[in-house]
């Protein structure tokens, strides 16, 4: 298209970029300010540069609990994502390339499971886990996060399209065990969809708030999302006595940056996953 005809779309896109960027710019700027400056200086411009003071205070506050939150978040999302991806890979392959009693029913149900609102499950899961005494532990967050019907669905679709049955039969003729065929033949072929499922579940757990909010009561076990909001609440209730807003802001920035970078670098995996899911 000639430049004149792309002027309008470019103006619209510029406006969109501004809209999506302003809150992120604000938090990046606000993280460099002391709490008094936060309240008194223009919101979208710099004051005295206190980012490193804020960071130092961030990791000292409440006996360094922010460091725990960071580690917890990484553990919860890392373990959940690896586990959910593994389960989805096994089940997706099993559904796509095998036949067994009840399979048709399970496949129909799978589509339904994607539609079950996750938060409807959180309260009853909490009650069950509290009966068996594992609420307020890491497992209370990790185990429910292993459930990813959408991941299994994505793998199933991908295997159907990209793993030829002839190849599996050839491997069977070579007397390879089913598990070995899975690891050495199937997994390398479906690696793109596995990365997609991994990223989806990683982000879902990293960003999850409702589940850990309900399951956990020890501050040592909180992920970033729950921890930072408790600081925010305290900061509001004890206005003036504790300086916390600058920490909430700096802590939020630090929680966001790794994911934003990962997103920008790995966007093509989201695109392929979205396309696989949307076009069936």
């Amino acid at each position: 298209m000639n430049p004149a005809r792309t002027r309008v779309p470019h103006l619209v896109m510029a406006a969109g970029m501004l809209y999506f960027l302003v809150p992120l710019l604000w938090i990046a700027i606000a993280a460099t300010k002391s709490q008094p400056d936060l309240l008194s200086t223009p919101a979208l411009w710099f004051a005295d540069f206190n980012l490193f003071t804020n960071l130092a205070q961030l990791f000292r506050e409440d006996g360094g609990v922010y460091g725990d939150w960071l580690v917890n978040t990484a553990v919860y999302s890392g373990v959940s994502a690896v586990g959910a991806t593994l389960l989805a890979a096994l089940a997706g392959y099993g559904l796509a390339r095998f036949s067994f009693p009840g399979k048709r029913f399970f496949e129909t149900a799978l589509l339904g499971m994607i539609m079950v609102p996750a938060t409807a499950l959180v309260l009853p899961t909490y009650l069950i886990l509290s009966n068996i005494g594992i609420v307020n532990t890491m497992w209370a967050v990790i185990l429910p996060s292993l459930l990813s019907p959408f991941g299994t669905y994505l793998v199933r679709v991908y295997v159907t399209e990209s793993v030829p049955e002839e190849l599996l039969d050839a491997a069977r003729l070579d007397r390879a065990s089913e598990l070995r065929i899975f690891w050495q033949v199937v997994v390398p072929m479906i690696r793109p969809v596995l990365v997609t499922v991994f990223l989806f579940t990683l982000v879902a757990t990293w960003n999850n708030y409702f589940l850990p909010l309900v399951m956990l009561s020890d501050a040592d076990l909180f992920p970033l999302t729950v921890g930072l909001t408790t600081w925010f609440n305290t900061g509001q209730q004890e206005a003036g006595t504790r300086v916390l807003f600058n920490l909430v802001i700096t802590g939020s920035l630090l929680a966001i940056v790794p994911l934003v970078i990962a997103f920008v670098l790995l966007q093509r995996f989201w695109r392929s996953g979205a396309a696989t899911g949307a076009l069936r």
Partner: protein
Amino acid sequence: MRRKRMTDHPVAGALFVLPFFLVVVAFLVVPLGYAFWLSLSSRSLALGERFTGFDNYVRAFSDPVLLDGFLRVVVFGAVQIPVMLGIALAGALTLDAVTTRFAIAFRLIAFMPYAVPAVLGALMWGFLYSRTFGPFADLPTVVGGEPFDFFSTDLLLLSLGNIVTWAWTGYNMIVLYSALQAVPREMYEAALLDGATQVQIALRVKVPVIRQAIALAAIFTVIGTMQFFVEPYVMARFAPQISAGYTPNLYAYNQAFAYSDFHYSAAISFALGFVVFVAAYAFVLLTRKRRQS
């Protein structure tokens, strides 16, 4: 032949699915069953715990707080979802037609908010809306007007809608853009040769082709909206008029953790989940059937 080969290893196939199946049973089937079982009884100081059948559901469907909350979420969704998906679709069509570096930068930036946890996004916007921290509330005073109160009852739904739109537009845009990228170019080359404009092609060729993807994005958005919790929960710190029953999900949470009425809470969760599930599943089956026929 194909059929027979697939049935050769039924045990192996079932074993591959087994671990996932167990997680489904433990964290989906059992919790749903337990919620339903809980919802069929009630607890009171005088009578203790006893079976009350569908009393909790009768109570839920005649509870003005719950119905108000439900209506609020429906009204919210009826405005926010079309606006957001409309912007996302327009953005996706633009990205599909314009392939400059600028467009690529736009795509990356629009996607960024999806990486921000919803609770932190809501906190950020809460700061941005506030008069003490944010740049926007005092804008009208520059020309001598009254400052905006983004937390007032009048503007609150709009403020919440903006947070959700900011967070999810880019994600939906990428989903729709991926669907557009998968459309073979030959489908509209003929239209281009006939002198059709890009806008005509977008509306008459591209949009109909990806309507399945649009429908799916709409379903997932509806499911998400009906569970509306995090944004109002966080915003309640800034706007105290966000009551315990502002949304159905917030109400279920407060019934359980503020009033310790797990039975009623379970009934609300189950009823809400059921309504959402039936609506979404019916929609999927309907669009699938229409596509196949």
